[in-house]
Each structure stands twice: as C-alpha cells, then as structure tokens.
C-alpha cells in the first residue's frame, strides 16, 4: 500500500514567547533513513515530541502516514514506534514484562508475543537480562531495552531521538546495523543525532535545523555538494616533529594543485587541493619524499561535518 510518511505543516512551538520551533514544513516519504541534525537547543527533540503527542504544537500540524497526531494520537501512532529522550521503565519490572506491556498495548497477537519479545531483546543483545529487574540496569542497558520497545511492533515509521546516547561503541555499531536492516524492510526512520559519521553512515537524507528553523532538507549527497565549500578535497597531515610556517608555505603550499595549506597546530597541517583521488595520491607521495616527518595523511572531517559547520555557524 502507501509508503510510510511523516509530515510537518507550519509546525511551531513556543514556550512562553520563546520560539522553540518555527514554521517547520517537512515532508518525508518512503523507505529511508533521514538524519535530523542541529545544535543543542535547535528544536529536534521538540519536533519529535510533537510527532508523538508528548507536547502540543502551538501552531501547525504533524502527520504520520497522513493521520494528524493531535487529536488522533492513537490512530496516528499505531504505525509508529518512537524513542524520545531515554524514558525510564518501572524499576521493578523485567525487560520481558515491560515489553509485554508494550506488546499488549499495541495488540501483538498473543501467540507471537513471547517470540517477538525474545527476538527484540536478542537484537539489542540483552538476552541475558531478559528476566532481571530493570532497576539495576546501567544507562546503556536501559537504552537498549528502550530501543527494543520502540521497534517491538515492527512499526513502519520509526522516530528516534539520539538513539545511541549512552551506548558503548559496540552498542552504537549494533544500533546502526539495526537501523540499516530496518531500511531494507521498507521502513521510514527519522532520527536525530549529533554523531555526523553515524548519520553519514546510515542515513540517505538529512534535515538540518537551527534555532527552530529548518535550514535544509535534501539527500546526503546533494547537501554535501551544495554546502560543503571545499567540495570534499581536504586532507590533514600529521607530523612527528613540530613544523614551522616556512616549510609549510614553501614546500607544501607550492605543490601543484594545492590551493592552500594552513597550520592547525604545531604538528598538523590542513591542505585544500583541487582534483580527485589521483591528485591526492600524488600529493601524498610528494610529501613523503620531502622527508619532513609526516606520519599520517587522512581526510580530517567528513563531508557532512564540513557542511554542518558551514551551515551552523554559532552555537546557541
């Protein structure tokens, strides 16, 4: 049938006179992962909370699969799973019980509940803890259960607010894999995150927001080519010894195809160059032959980070 969708129409939220979200218009449709980026206080959580009817919009509408979340919360959220701001589970319940509650509320068929819960808990690698009380869990363990709860009913639309906060590196990687597998199953994932490499890794599109206003919503590649001023050709070099301005200017900046070379600190230099991978290869061998103590040669920031830093100038 229809592909999953979420839509914000002139969505605004004011706290007193403070505009936490201003006139957000955003329509996301189809099976994909959309990263929701923006600095602290930009309005990401606010947006996601309106979509789950946790807070009420001051103006505008939020729709999930074409159904307005307020006042049709029950119907709208039927096909959505959400994890917003790490909720707490009743400490005396076990993951099995907490997830049973969700399963019952969402009407999972009785005969499937047990297996569905066990699978969901296995997916977040918490099988060992299935029948232990949540009260003693660490932050990351609770977050894993929260992720399992959000995905339990295999919802078409998945809303995640910084889902990997509190997770260990392996946990983060596992969540990335879970999200990737969701995409393959025709799911729409809308996910806020501060981890740009995570977004670059799993998302197809990004929406960037700052001061409650949407700056851009486009595919990852369009966004990076449009807004990344260096078009990706940046390289960072690290030296074993301190390096002086002179050798940077004289030796590196004068190499063919190099547009600029600037010292980041005493042992690191950032080079911007034009041309593609062949030029990059040549630059590397050139600098090696200079024998000035280069020990590493790598892309300093992701294209997305570059874009982000260009679009979002000031913090708060």
């Amino acid at each position, binding site marked *: 049938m229809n592909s999953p969708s979420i839509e914000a129409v002139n969505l605004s939220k004011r706290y007193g006179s403070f505009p936490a979200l201003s006139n957000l218009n955003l329509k996301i449709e189809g099976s994909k992962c959309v990263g929701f980026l923006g600095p602290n206080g930009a309005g990401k959580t606010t947006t996601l909370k309106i979509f789950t009817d*946790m807070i009420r919009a001051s103006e505008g509408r939020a729709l999930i699969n074409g159904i307005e979340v307020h006042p049709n919360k029950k119907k709208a*959220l039927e096909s959505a799973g959400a994890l*917003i701001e790490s909720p707490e589970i009743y400490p*005396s*319940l076990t993951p099995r019980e907490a997830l049973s509650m*969700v399963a019952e*509320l*969402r009407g*999972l068929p009785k005969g499937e509940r047990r297996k569905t819960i066990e699978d969901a808990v296995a997916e977040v690698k918490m099988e060992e803890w299935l029948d232990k009380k949540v009260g003693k869990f660490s932050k990351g363990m609770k977050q894993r259960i929260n992720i399992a709860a959000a995905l339990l009913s295999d919802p*078409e639309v998945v809303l995640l607010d910084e889902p990997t906060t509190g997770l260990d590196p392996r946990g983060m990687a596992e969540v990335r894999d879970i999200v990737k597998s969701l995409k393959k199953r025709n799911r729409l994932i809308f996910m806020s995150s501060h981890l740009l490499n995570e977004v670059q890794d799993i998302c197809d599109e990004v929406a960037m927001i700052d001061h409650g206003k949407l700056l851009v919503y486009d595919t990852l590649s369009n966004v990076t080519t449009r807004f990344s001023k260096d078009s990706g050709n940046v390289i960072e070099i690290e030296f074993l010894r301190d390096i002086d301005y002179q050798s940077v200017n004289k030796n590196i900046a004068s190499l063919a195809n190099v547009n600029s070379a600037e010292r980041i600190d005493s042992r690191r230099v950032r080079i911007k160059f034009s041309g593609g991978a062949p030029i990059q290869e040549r630059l590397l061998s050139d600098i090696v032959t200079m024998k000035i103590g280069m020990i590493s040669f790598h892309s300093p920031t992701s294209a997305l980070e570059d874009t982000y830093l260009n679009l979002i100038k000031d913090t708060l």
Partner: protein
Amino acid sequence: MSQSPTRLSSSTRTQILPSSISQVGTVTKYELVNYFRSRRFFVLLVIGVIISALLTVLVGYYRPADFMSSSLKFYYNWFGGSVTFIIILSGIFYGGDAISGEFQNKTGYFLVANPLRRSAIYIGKWLGALIASMIMLAVFTAIAIGNGVYYFGLSIPYQLWVSVLFGLLYLIAVLGFTFFFSSLFKSSSISILVTAILFLFAFMLIQTLVEGLVKIEPWFLITYGAQIITNTLIDPYPTTSTQGFGPNVFTSYATTIPEGIAILSAYFLITAVLGLLIFERREFT
C-alpha cells in the same frame, strides 16, 4: 486474535490495536505488578496489619466496656474508629504521586509515545491504585470481622456491610482527589506531602473551624461526607443537634446518608474530570 487483512502496514505481522478499554486493563495489570513488588505496598500492608494487631491485643487484654456492649458498638469502635485513616493512608500512598511520579521518574515517557489515549493511562493507573487500596481495606475489614466473630459470633450487623460500602465510596473519592492533585505537580514528594497535609490535617481543621466559628454545615468537605461511614454504625443514626443557649450554642452536624453519598460522589466526579483534563493537556517536556 484474528488475522486482519485491513492492516495498512506492508509488514507480514498482523496486529490490531486493542480497544481503549482493554488498554486500560493492560495499564492496570502492569501497575499492579509494579505495586506488588514495591516496598510501598508492603509498608502500607504492614501498617494496616500493625494497627489491626494493636487493636486485637488491646481489646483482648482490656476488654473495654464500650467495645463489648454490643456487636454494633464493637464494629463502630473498631472499624469506624480507624477505617478512614486506613483509606486516607492508601489514598496518599497510591494516589499522592501517581501522576507526578510518572513525570519525575520519567516512567511516563515510556508509555506515552505508544498508541493509546492519555486517559487510558490515567484510568488504568487509577484502577491499579484502587485495587491495591482495596486489598488493604479488605485485610483490615477481615481482621475486624475475625475479632468481632470471636466476641459476638457470626451475627454480623448489616450496618457493617453498609459501612464497608461507604468506605469503598470514600476510597474512590479519595483516590480521585489524590490523582487530581498529583497531576498538578511535577514532583513526587511535594504532591505526596500536599495530599497528606490536606487529608490528615487541613480538612479536619477547616471542618472544626467551619462548624465552630462560622456555624454552617461543612457540606463542601470530603471528610464531612465520609462521616456516613461511622454514622452508619450508630444506632439510631445520629442527627444534627444543637446544644447550649445564647452565644454558647453549639451545633454538631451529622451527615445524612444521601448527603454523604452526594458529597463523596461529587468529589470523585469533579476531581476525576479535572484530573483527566489536566493530564490530557500536560506536556511531557
């Protein structure tokens, strides 16, 4: 559960959202699971048992004449004397932070983003608190009856059952009230404190002041309505009476049964509606 072809999802799973009523049942069920494992439930039960044990020992040892004169007198003193305290205690323990705690501990955030009405959460939790409190009330009543049967045999005066029913109505009203109050606050301890002060002191104080100084019937107080629980255990049922002369006249007001039922029902209905409305509008910020 039947296989539904109307499911919009492209997923293979078939699931039909349960009715709001059955979602209320689910919330109640897990609320009770949580209660039964909580320290609070046992502390309260222990308090109820200690009060009952104290009464059992004291009555057994001293055999106070007032207790022993008739079985109705016995239940009046035993049951009528402490049941409102037991009810208030349950109301404070279970209702005092029922909603505020969901915000403070962020447990409400776990449920609220699911496809169920906010009212289903509120009502489900309310029913859970009611059932847990009823267990307490039942234990207290059972021990009272056990003692009564020991002294007076199986002829339990019908007034006791009426009184228990009124006690239940009072419990319902108290929980409606405490839930409403707890939905006004974001902090557990403050909402527990406020409801405790109200029920343990403030209402009594206002009642005394209104009756003694303003000299009007305190029909607007829930505790005044609750007097039917004890009045029922008095034979004949007490009536409003005036004593003294001139400026020293003192009226002792007695709630009639219809008045009491009306007061308690009104408290429940009004606070339930207000509490629900507030919870519907509360923001999970």
